[in-house]
């Protein structure tokens, strides 16, 4: 009895970390626009989620690159005074 219990606890212990990882993966999945809408029961494997996560981070980095360039071009042509305007816009 006791040996069985200890064994079940052992497997339970490893399951907890598995559950934890599954939980984190599904949380991550919710953040990914590509596969956000598929339910947990749907077959989105953890490695797909991780792959998509990598793609998404790369695409966000690219967007930051593009936007930096765009902002740089815009800064050359616009007044600084507008920064105050934007600030009030964003912080409302």
């Amino acid at each position: 009895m006791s040996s069985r219990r200890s064994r079940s606890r052992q497997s339970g212990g490893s399951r907890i970390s598995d559950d934890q990882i599954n939980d984190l993966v599904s949380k991550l999945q919710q953040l990914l626009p590509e596969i956000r809408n598929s339910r947990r029961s749907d077959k989105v494997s953890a490695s797909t989620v991780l792959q998509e996560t990598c793609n998404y981070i790369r695409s966000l980095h690219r967007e930051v690159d593009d936007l930096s360039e765009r902002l740089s071009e815009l800064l050359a042509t616009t007044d600084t005074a507008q920064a105050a305007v934007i600030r009030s816009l964003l912080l409302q």
Partner: protein
Amino acid sequence: MSSSTTTTTSGVTLNPKSCRIKFARRFLRSLAQIKKQKLPSSSSSEEEIRMRSKGIKMAAYYSMARAVGPRMNWSRAFLFKLRNRVRHPKLVKKKKKKRVIMRSNKASRSVSSVHMDRGNKLRELVPGGKSMDFCSLLEETAHYITCLSTQVKVMQAIADHLSK
């Protein structure tokens, strides 16, 4: 306050809204500074734009890391790396990634090793990811993604407003 605050398993609260405001404040401040900076007049306007966009990019990442503060691993790692680069530029060598690809037949690789592979790719993308265990890597990644998309949205909003 009906803000959508989520709590990660490590108890770190993640409030996208406050992050957004903090980031926007910092980023706009540094945009104003960048605008004021005079670049060497010898440079062409194209070069000037390129140089400035580099500065803006750094300012954006830096502002977000500062907005998050030291409570997350990734922001701490990012700020640490950046500060070292500023203080000891000579010590920071550009690491050339030497990739020795020794892939045996793919069929022999287990599912978990595929996970680890993906995890390794993720580690390169998330600041400080190389020294995290898998669980916190996933947590930090979730937070990092949220922050990055906030960053993109705010930058987009500023750009849209400026181009009006």
